[in-house]
């Protein structure tokens, strides 16, 4: 039996938070933007829901759409965006402050922003979205070994950044 709107709503309820957080961390905590992009991602997925193979994982399918959507968004809307954009960075940290998070979270976010975009993404997928290596591999269309290596390198980079940045007061 083909999947219908009811099934889709079930998936939506299960994954909306994960997708939203994936986007939120990737757009420097611009909440409005993250909510709009999340909405677009789910609408796009429903528009193509007929093509979804129910034998596959909806999680990897929706994150693949989210990843591609974000790539397209950056490519079309913000081609000149800098990863080290101070304003974005401060906005992100301010946001975290507002919601009364620990200082370490703010420091960690600042460190993360120093990493290249692909490394940030693999870290977010692994730790914020709690995806497995194999799921990340499907989403990023890479093999599992590459993902493991990329993640290890990302953590190394994080450590290197910590050496240079964490020693001085950031906030």
């Amino acid at each position, binding site marked *: 039996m083909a999947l219908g709107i009811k099934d889709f*709503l079930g998936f939506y309820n299960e994954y909306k*938070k994960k997708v939203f957080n994936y986007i939120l961390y990737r757009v420097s905590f611009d909440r409005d933007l993250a*909510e709009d992009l999340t909405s677009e991602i789910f609408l796009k997925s429903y*528009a193509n829901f007929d093509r979804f193979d129910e034998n596959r994982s909806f999680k990897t399918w929706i994150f693949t759409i989210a990843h591609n959507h974000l790539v397209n968004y950056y490519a079309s809307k913000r081609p000149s965006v800098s990863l080290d954009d101070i304003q974005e960075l401060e906005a992100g940290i301010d946001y975290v402050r507002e919601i009364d998070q620990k200082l370490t*979270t703010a420091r960690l976010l600042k460190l993360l922003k120093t990493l290249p975009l692909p490394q940030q993404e693999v870290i977010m997928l692994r730790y914020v979205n709690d995806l497995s290596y194999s799921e990340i591999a499907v989403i990023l269309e890479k093999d599992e070994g590459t993902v493991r290596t990329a993640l290890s390198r990302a*953590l190394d980079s994080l450590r290197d950044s910590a050496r240079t940045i964490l020693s001085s007061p950031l906030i």
Partner: protein
Amino acid sequence: MNTQHDNFEKQLEQLPSFEIRKRKELLFFAKLFLLHFKKIIQSSSNFLLSLNPFYMGRIFKSGVVVAAVFLVLGTAFSYNAGITRGHFLYPLKRAGETVRVMSTFDAGQRVDLHLDYSGRRLDEVRTLLNGSSGSMFSAASAQSETPEVTDVTDEDATAEDVVFSDETVAAVEETVSEVVEATEDAMETVDEDMTDPTEVSEALDTIEEAQEEQLDELSDLSEDAPVEVTEAVDQAVDDTAENLGEVVAAGEAVDEALEEGAEEVDVDLETGEEDVADDEEEEPSEKQARAEAELVEALATFESFKAALEASGFDNEKSDKFVGKVEDKLAAAQAALADGNYGKAYGMLKAAQAHTNVQKSFGNRQDFVKVKGDDSEDDEDESVSDEVEDETDDEDSTEESDDDESEDESSGEATDEASDDEEANDESGDEDELTDESSDTDDDDDSDEVRDSGKPAEDRGRGNNR
């Protein structure tokens, strides 16, 4: 290096996660359902429009759009029993149901729809009483829009501690009456739109089955529901019973018409009579005779039951009310029987039985069964206990233990039954003790307590101690 990795991993795992704001989510739902609607229209409009070029006009298109929006949104929301009267999406849910009925051309399917909606109303009543409304959006958003149930936060709080707001009571009352109305809509559909004897017979059977189930569920509800809504639930039991009577009578007549080879029937469900072209005086069928026998037996059983109640010293307002209700129903059944209206008699009998089920809430079964041990009441009590045994499976063990207990007492042995039964056994050893305890029950008995129990009084006592 690994330690540093671990440290970072721990910190990364603790990164906070956030929720989408409700208003943004609602906006998403609006867009999603528009998209859904667009997909449906895209797949069906070409076919519809190609059939009838006349309908290319704007008015038709607008009408289709509006109806389809209600149908799609209403259908989607209708799956959710958490959307109850008072919820902001409830009108949409009901509008979806109406559109669906209006767009269903087969009368048999419409009957099924009405019965389905009757079931939904019952689910909504339960949701309202449980105070567990939710929506497909989220529990929080739904609860903010649904009539509230103010619950006492005490862990030991019982059902009687739950305070229902006026809004909730009103919503329950209205929804309960709609349970009956939905089945009446099904009856009306048969009445007005069906003439084929086979179809009518099948539809009436379906309605009868649904009403039987509805009677059971409503009587269960009457047992568990708070005192504020009892009247409405009891009224629904009575109305359903009366309707059931009409349906049974009409079903009998249609079956006979079928046997006589009638090609068309015109059912009048208001009176339970049915006009067939060659209508004749009917002989009571086997089913009717059986209904008559059942009624006679029920009357005898009830008399025994009343006697047992009196003998147990259970003399309070609650028992009088119950006895009065059953008496009224049985009298109505008797009158219907005398008039030859077997369907109504059957319905009234069902209502009496439904009230008897409600009697479970007295919590005095031990008192009643105890009288069974008295030689003078032996025969009568047995018939009553048989009836009660039929009604509730879960109470079978109590019945059996009492039987066992009579034997055990004669041999001077203590039984090793479950604790409930032990207490019942303790009580049943002495008639004077029984009367005292019954008096105690009377003293403590207020309507709330009786309503809340649904189980033996001693069970409630233990619950309170906890």
